[in-house]
């Protein structure tokens, strides 16, 4: 053993760096590289158009307030952010509620064709939006939903993944709890609200983060189904900023400000709730 240990030490010594230092160094370099475009965007969001066109100028420009204000109010990004926020919250609340109810039925009830119904739910994984985009668009027109909040939330409020995850979680809850509830004559909704939901807080938080980020980042569907600019979401809204120009020069500082704003909301959600997210992903893997 001692011989082997010394051989490892001498090997890493020849590299020149202790192993732990190498780990830290490579992490710092990776993280800086991954974060660099964002930091540059943040920096440029403080520059005036003239400063931007001076390409090598990497000093903070002092025009942050102007850029962010103009993006938010002159170019209506504030409205798009509110639209995105309302859309994402509706999708999160709708999807979590519907999926909790569906998982309750699948785990705690016995009914005919249960496996077939569960398979019917799971098979929708094969049907992402691009597979049904043309008829879905026509359906929205037929329902009179074009340009409405219904169009950008309705098709997203049921999900195979969420039903699957809640089902997995419910199956891991001790059956003694269920027995107790049954003996006490607790009704299903009471059981869901008083027992299952408190025991699934982490899972609900995890599914909520995944859903929120997913909804917030939607681009293709709102682009197609929302043509009224007032009703648009922020991801498509930042492309409207590209028309912002002064004397033929694109106002990239303003566009970068808009990009930072469009990213900040899901970023805050992720940082705040990364623990339940990681736990949910760990379960998804099993």
């Amino acid at each position, binding site marked *: 053993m001692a011989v082997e240990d010394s051989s490892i030490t001498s*090997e890493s010594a020849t590299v020149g760096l202790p192993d732990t230092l190498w780990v830290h160094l490579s992490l710092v370099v990776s993280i800086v590289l991954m974060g660099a475009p964002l930091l540059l965007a943040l920096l440029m969001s403080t520059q005036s158009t003239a400063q931007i066109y001076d390409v090598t100028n990497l000093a903070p420009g002092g025009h942050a307030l102007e850029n962010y204000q103009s993006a938010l109010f002159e170019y209506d990004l504030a409205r798009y952010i509110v639209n995105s926020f309302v859309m994402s919250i509706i999708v999160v609340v709708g999807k979590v509620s519907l999926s909790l*109810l569906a998982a309750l039925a699948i785990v705690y009830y016995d009914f005919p064709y249960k496996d077939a119904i569960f398979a019917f739910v799971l098979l929708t994984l094969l049907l992402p939006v691009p597979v049904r985009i*043309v008829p879905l668009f026509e359906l929205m027109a037929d329902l009179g939903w074009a340009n409405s909040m219904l169009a950008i939330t309705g098709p997203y409020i049921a999900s195979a993944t969420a039903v699957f995850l809640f089902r997995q979680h419910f199956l891991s809850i001790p059956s003694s709890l269920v027995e107790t509830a049954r003996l006490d004559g607790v009704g299903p909704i009471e059981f869901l609200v008083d027992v299952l939901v408190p025991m699934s807080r982490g899972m609900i938080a995890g599914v909520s983060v995944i859903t929120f980020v997913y909804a917030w980042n939607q681009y293709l569907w709102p682009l197609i189904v929302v043509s009224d600019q007032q009703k648009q979401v922020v991801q498509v809204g930042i492309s409207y900023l590209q028309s912002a120009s002064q004397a033929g020069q694109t106002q990239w500082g303003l566009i970068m400000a808009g990009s930072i704003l469009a990213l900040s909301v899901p970023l805050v959600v992720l940082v705040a709730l990364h623990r339940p997210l990681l736990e949910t992903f760990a379960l998804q893997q099993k």
Partner: protein
Amino acid sequence: MVRDIRAFDDSRAAAVFLAPTLAVLVLFLYYPSFETFRLSLYETLLLGQQTTFVGLDNFVTLATSPEYHNSLFVSFAFAAVVVVGSLTIALFVAYQLYRVDKWRSIYLVAAIWPYALPPAVAATVLLFLLHPNLGVITHYIEMIPGVEFDWFTNGPLAFGVLAVVAIWKQLGYNIVFLLAALHNVPESLAETSRLDGVGSLTMLREVYVPLISPTLGFLVVMDTIYAFFATFPLVDLMTSGGPNGATNLLIFKLYRDAFEFNSLGLASAESIVLFGIVSILMLAQLKLTGEYAHYGA
């Protein structure tokens, strides 16, 4: 695992609880998907006002269209580059996160944040930073003698730029899953197979990669689907499929055929091809997850 706990008996109540989910799935997922199949057999004219049954003509058109062949090729090549690039980098970062002795949670958040990065934002930011005339990164790249970084006119360069953006955005997702997989490797298993005196990267390649291969397989499938579908904003905002079709991914071509050229029947046929690709990928993943469960037990 406990199954069929059967806390409640009234199966009508179960139907009520399932109804909202099933209604949404039928109305917005199954029904439009069946409609796609039907529409793919029709030719639509006059902004969809007039439709004619044409059988498999739309599929014949696709099979014989050089433009569609190009999109197929570009999409698969793009998926390959994105999957390999993103998984390689993510594997390295996840391994270092797994091994690091302190500040782990700070490093973790700083490494997985691209999970929250909207593709449209990633595209807009890099469109500017890599802009052939104005981009600060372009400026430094072009300081290399003889290099001209004009990806607005150079097809392979545009393809490369798009791949870099797609890889960047997908790193967070991959790191999360790979880190979880590394933590699931039993300590003793890694310990017994520890090779004497080898470098840490050899350990990663020889010991850890085979042990987490089910997760890698899962991610290959998820990243391929991502590269096919979620990259639409990148193409739309950065290249519009050009130059000369070099970045005309299937999803972008489908969008234009449907919503710019109003060829709804042809676009539906393209949707069916995508459905075929997703089905094959998902089937592969189902097989992999099955194996994963076996490995876990």
